């Protein structure tokens, strides 16, 4: 037997679940060992910190969503209630929009077989329609991908002045698959400058991270079979007579 119990035995001790397991003989050791007692105290304090963390709250929410049964045929009263909520919500939205004197957010949505690419264009501090309009220098572009397929990874590439960049996944460590129905931000905000004229943004569907390699960006920009959405950008030349 080792000098000190394995982590599994300490966890069971902490949970008071040693009884009836093959690690039960460690109980006496833990009770009489200063080092193990200290380890248990440390674990207890870690548990308390984790229990009050945002991360635990996030997982609670996710599990609650997962555990929720599929909705059956909606009851009339529920829809009636929802209609009221929607009506009140819409009215409130209109009032807020009027007060702020801002146009409603208008998104460009490029729907592909594997999901939808949403593009918000910020022009002179406002979000405006991006469809078909040339961009202006200084505009901002926010890109989001909403996946319609499970276990996929959306990759976005930008070809800009001959340079090709991969915006998502931004780092290998955060390359989690995107579940169906989940929306992710793609690479933050792109600020439009002259070099983006003629650039192409594309989203590529891949089953897993293993399907990505050095040729993926090429395939994405060239329009291979896995390309889910593409967007060609053009920039409006500055008007006016300024030299």
């Amino acid at each position: 037997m080792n000098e000190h119990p394995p982590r599994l035995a300490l966890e069971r001790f902490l949970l008071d679940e040693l009884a009836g397991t093959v690690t039960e003989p460690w109980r006496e050791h833990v009770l009489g060992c200063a080092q193990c007692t200290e380890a248990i105290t440390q674990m207890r304090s870690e548990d308390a910190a984790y229990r009050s963390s945002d991360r635990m709250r996030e997982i609670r929410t996710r599990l609650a969503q997962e555990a929720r049964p599929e909705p059956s045929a909606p009851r009339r009263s529920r829809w009636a209630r929802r209609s009221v909520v929607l009506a009140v919500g819409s009215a409130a939205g209109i009032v807020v929009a009027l007060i702020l004197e801002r146009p409603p957010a208008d998104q460009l949505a490029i729907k592909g077989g594997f999901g939808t690419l949403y593009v918000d264009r910020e022009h002179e501090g406002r979000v405006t329609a991006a469809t078909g309009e040339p961009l202006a220098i200084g505009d901002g572009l926010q890109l989001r991908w909403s996946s319609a397929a499970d276990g996929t990874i959306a990759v976005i590439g930008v070809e800009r002045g001959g340079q090709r960049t991969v915006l998502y996944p931004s780092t290998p460590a955060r390359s989690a698959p995107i579940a169906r129905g989940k929306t992710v931000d793609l690479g933050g905000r792109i600020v439009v400058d002259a070099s983006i004229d003629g650039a192409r943004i594309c989203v590529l569907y891949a089953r897993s991270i293993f399907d990505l390699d050095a040729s993926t960006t090429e395939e994405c920009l060239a329009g291979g079979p896995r390309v889910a959405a593409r967007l060609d950008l053009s920039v409006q030349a500055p008007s006016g007579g300024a030299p």
Partner: protein
Amino acid sequence: MATPLGNAADLFERYGPAIHRRCRDMLRDSDAAHDAVQEVFLRAHRHAARFRGDAAPFTWLYRIATTYCLQQLRNRARRAAKLEAFVAPEGVVPDLAARIDLQRAFSEEDEETLLLAHLRWVDGLTLEEVAEVVELSRKTVAKRLEDLRTRSAARLKSEVER
């Protein structure tokens, strides 16, 4: 959904911190551990029907967590070079030599053998303790680990002779 394991949310309340510690210790990455905990409990929820009740719920979750983290470590080893080739700026050559050992260990053995090896040689569990976690007999565990030792020795020998 209520399962023989109990409600998924209740399981998480009771065992979440311990499973988080397990994932964090194995993956050594806070974000990855967070994702792993979520995945472990989602898997437990989705596969609750497979829980036979022979082991305690914690033991079952511990096994799911260990298997999941080993998969992640295996994936990391596999994709490291690929992804670096994909995202690395020009002129940066990934340090492949440094990964060869890890990559080999993770690529040449099946998932269950890797789980047994990790529990026995990394966690330091006894054969009885490993057997309890994986729900196999002590004899089977001993045999599988002995076979692994034999294979490793043969690989090493062939490399030395090459």
